[in-house]
């Protein structure tokens, strides 16, 4: 695009600006913008950068606690984990690019979230991902699973950060809009955190990393636009990742961060040089002047517009202390990365860009940032669904139902996925994928982090408020189940078109539910990302507020894992079982129904139970722990058995509806195992804490027996559970 491009209504529309927003542009500029300036407004005011639809509601989330060092607003959230150390983490979506080009979309998603974390001074130590794909029967699903998994692995494996867990769901609502939410956790010294606010008029602005090409131009606005059938033609704007360069960039940045050279640093993510330079200046209350001729470029003849909007990967912008340029240059040259002084901080409060000696853009920073649109979009509360009485739900033979459930796409083993991720590099992975939460030792210490991602989108559709509460509560539960004290969460809110009141209602209610749970559980939100317009031809995804969470284990030798450990242990159920079948997997997979109100979460009990379970783990009273979630009690028992190769006998209580007892998804429950000698101690402790606890069976053998209903061999169950995904992926029309 040349400088002369006329600013026609079509051009304005293609930049995603409404007529009202363009009016505001004219007001701020005092004249018509040129195309470069329009491009800058467009990306800064895109949903992706401005959170214009969700900001009002995001502000209601709790973000503080004594252990929170930095909440939302920076590249990632920072929490204190004691001993002068901090954990830095965030989850971010790369949904639209991954649908268009799954390998590169997912790979660059991982690259972007890694940069968010090491930009703040942390060495990345763990990756997670939360993936949602369409119906397995949809013709694109297999190709997308294949590409996304290969892309996540391709990037994470190469850079040498273990991918330690995550979750994967399948549902037809994601047929045209898959979700790829990637999370990175890093570790830093608490007194060596780096921020993005520029400071020091006259200080040099430095560009490091890869060269700038024409890739990804308008990715940020694409990420904020609804899909239509012709989106597949958008392929050329997808950027390509280079994990090797990013590995060098991590090492170079961490090496420079060990000196005192850096004043501020920001990665060039979505909207590239525009948002990084703009945000640094804006946060510092300063101006910035850049000579775009100095930007390292991969292609010839790039215009200012293209340079500013390029989303080439593996690039960073930093402000250095005066006189430290040579030191910084020598570090980046050692790692064979580009290094260029591209500008200087000014006191004008304006962003001034030059190309070929002429000023090509000149705009005021504060007015643009402050006028960033914030909408109070109309919303309607969701219609409450009826509570389903278990007695009305057909009672299938429980062991046959169990087979169906452990082999259904959402519950089938995801080994095929996580075996493609290096989950052991860095030598601190204490619990590998497949458990309730990953456990990663804090390198060189006796502490560990528990890490999990959670969300149950079918609950969120049924009741966004309850679903928001449940997503947070389940993350809390999964951390507790490995013995980690839950500290903070990052959220990745994936929804449809917020301009529709019913979708906006989902957003509002889910955030309100999350906020309630976070407050009740002392579990603040420290970072997050919003992905809206996940709709194709007017059909929205299930509301998916994915939660990533981090907890702390004080003694890495005192954790718990889900496999049974030995025959003869008692199995203890913590929490109340009423047999809630509404919105359950049983209802969906066995009865073909996706209705009913979701199980309610009792937050006061949730906290008490979590404290209790962690206490039992710390006292080493228990041999195995697993939270009871998707699929209910019998599925949870089967998972513990399959993971260990040790069977179990379960004794259902008398007078219950067996199918509801086995497969109801009542919240706030855990399964513990313990040697018989410990059982009285545990039950007594539960009683003292006013927690429901009962022995429901014992471990042993190679079969799973449900007393009164029969027996199934673990070998058969495991075959079903492990078989589905590899079978699906190797079906004849698989793409290579």
């Amino acid at each position, binding site marked *: 695009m040349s400088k002369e491009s006329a600013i026609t209504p079509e051009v304005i529309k293609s930049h995603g600006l409404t007529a009202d927003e363009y009016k505001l542009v004219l007001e701020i500029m005092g004249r018509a913008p040129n195309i470069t300036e329009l491009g800058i407004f467009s990306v800064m005011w895109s949903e992706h950068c401005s959170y214009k639809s969700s900001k009002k509601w995001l502000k209601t989330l709790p973000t503080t606690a004594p252990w929170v060092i930095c909440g939302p607003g920076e590249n990632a959230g920072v929490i204190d984990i004691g001993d002068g150390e901090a954990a830095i983490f965030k989850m971010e979506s790369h949904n639209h690019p991954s649908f268009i080009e799954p390998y590169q979309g997912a790979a660059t998603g991982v690259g972007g979230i890694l940069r968010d974390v090491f930009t703040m001074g942390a060495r990345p130590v763990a990756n997670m991902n939360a993936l949602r794909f369409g119906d397995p029967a949809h013709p694109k699903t297999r190709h997308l699973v294949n590409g996304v998994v290969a892309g996540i692995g391709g990037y994470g494996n190469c850079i040498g950060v273990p991918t330690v867990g995550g979750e994967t769901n399948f549902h037809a609502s994601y047929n045209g809009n898959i979700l790829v939410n990637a999370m990175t956790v890093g570790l830093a010294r608490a007194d060596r955190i780096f921020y993005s606010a520029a400071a020091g008029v006259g200080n040099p602005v430095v560009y490091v990393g890869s060269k700038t090409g024409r890739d990804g131009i308008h990715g940020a606005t694409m990420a904020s636009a609804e899909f239509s059938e012709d989106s597949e033609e958008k392929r050329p704007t997808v950027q390509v990742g280079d994990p090797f360069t990013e590995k060098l960039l991590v090492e170079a940045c961490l090496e420079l961060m060990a000196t005192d050279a850096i004043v501020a640093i920001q990665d060039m993510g979505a909207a590239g040089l525009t948002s990084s330079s703009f945000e640094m200046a804006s946060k510092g209350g300063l101006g910035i002047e850049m000579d775009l001729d100095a930007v390292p470029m991969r292609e010839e003849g790039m215009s200012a517009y293209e340079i500013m909007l390029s989303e080439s990967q593996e690039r960073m912008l930093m402000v250095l202390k005066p006189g430290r340029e040579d030191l910084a240059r020598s570090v980046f040259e050692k790692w064979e990365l580009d290094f260029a002084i591209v500008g200087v901080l000014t006191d004008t409060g304006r962003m001034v860009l030059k190309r070929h000696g002429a000023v090509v853009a000149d705009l005021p920073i504060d007015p643009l940032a402050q006028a960033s649109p914030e909408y109070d979009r109309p919303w309607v509360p969701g219609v409450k669904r009826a509570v389903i009485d278990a007695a009305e739900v057909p009672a299938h033979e429980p062991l046959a139902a169990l087979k169906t459930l452990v082999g259904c796409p959402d519950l089938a083993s995801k080994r095929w996925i996580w075996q493609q991720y290096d989950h052991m590099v860095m*030598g601190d992975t204490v619990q590998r994928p497949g458990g309730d939460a990953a456990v990663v030792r804090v390198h060189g210490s006796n502490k560990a982090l528990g890490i999990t991602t959670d969300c149950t989108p079918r609950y969120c559709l049924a009741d966004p408020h309850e679903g928001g509460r449940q997503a947070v509560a389940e993350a809390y539960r999964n951390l507790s189940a490995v013995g980690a004290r839950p500290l903070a969460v990052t959220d990745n809110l994936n929804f449809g078109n917020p301009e529709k009141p019913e979708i906006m209602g989902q957003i509002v209610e889910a955030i309100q539910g999350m906020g309630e749970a976070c407050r009740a559980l002392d579990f603040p939100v420290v970072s997050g990302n919003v992905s809206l317009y996940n709709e194709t031809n007017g059909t929205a995804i299930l509301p998916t507020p994915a939660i990533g969470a981090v907890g702390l284990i004080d003694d890495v030798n005192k954790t718990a894992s889900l496999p049974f450990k030995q025959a003869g242990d008692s199995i203890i159920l913590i929490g109340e079982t009423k047999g809630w079948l509404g919105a359950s997997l049983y209802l969906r997979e066995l009865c073909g129904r996706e209705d009913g109100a979701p199980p309610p979460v009792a937050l006061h009990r949730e906290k008490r139970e979590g404290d209790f379970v962690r206490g039992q783990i710390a006292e080493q009273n228990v041999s195995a722990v697993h939270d009871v979630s998707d699929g209910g009690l019998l599925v949870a028992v089967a998972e513990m058995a399959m993971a260990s190769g040790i069977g179990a006998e379960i004794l259902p209580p008398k007078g219950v509806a067996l199918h509801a007892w086995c497969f109801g998804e009542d919240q706030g429950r855990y399964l513990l195992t313990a040697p018989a000698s410990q059982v009285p101690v545990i039950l007594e402790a539960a009683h003292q804490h006013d927690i429901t606890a009962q022995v429901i069976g014992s471990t042993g053998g190679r079969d799973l027996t449900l007393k009164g209903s029969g027996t199934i061999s673990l070998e058969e169950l495991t075959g079903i559970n492990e078989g589905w995904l590899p079978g699906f992926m190797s079906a004849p029309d698989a793409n290579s």
Partner: protein
Amino acid sequence: MKAAVIVFPGSNCDRDVAVALEASTGKAPLMVWHRDTALPAVDLIVVPGGFSYGDYLRCGAMAAHSPILREVKARAEAGTPVLGICNGFQIITEAGLLPGVLMRNAQLKFICKDVFLKVERTDSPFTRAYAQDAVVRLPIAHAEGNYYADAATLDRLEGEGLVAFRYAGADGSVSAAANPNGSARNIAGIFSENRRVLGLMPHPERLAEDLLGGSDGKVMFDGLVEALS
């Protein structure tokens, strides 16, 4: 025992192997950056895993032609033990220190999991602490670990007892079902003719601590310390 770990741009198991070495030797190994051409006198040289040069062109190809590798080769010829793990194995085969080549896994995917290995020879500094024909558990993590050499080379390796480890079942049986990547004759690791160079795809440094799930890998490092101190 004094050890050196060679670090290339893109190496990512350099720290892991340094930790494992330090746990066995009591002192941190020397980390040698690829641009260095001088290598101090050491008892063991480790070429670690990772993605040197991003695995671009071919895994290990560019690292194999770096100046430091010429020095490693010279030391190996003079008898200094060299251990190449995963990408390090790829590098030293590309450099001609060991015969054959590591090709793309038969099922084309990166694979990270524990495998069982049968210990084929114990008369080397690397395997002396294992029992003959012992079955050990170590993790693999690679997309290109499919060992290939022509039939004559494979026959020679077997005939001269230069196969160090083979992929096996938990019971030690060497079968196609136990072969995770399509390697010729289930080969997971091979020795040089004097058994002073070992290249293997599995990662001994990753299971060298019970907390991480096992310590069969530690046996290798402990054996090296005994042999080379």
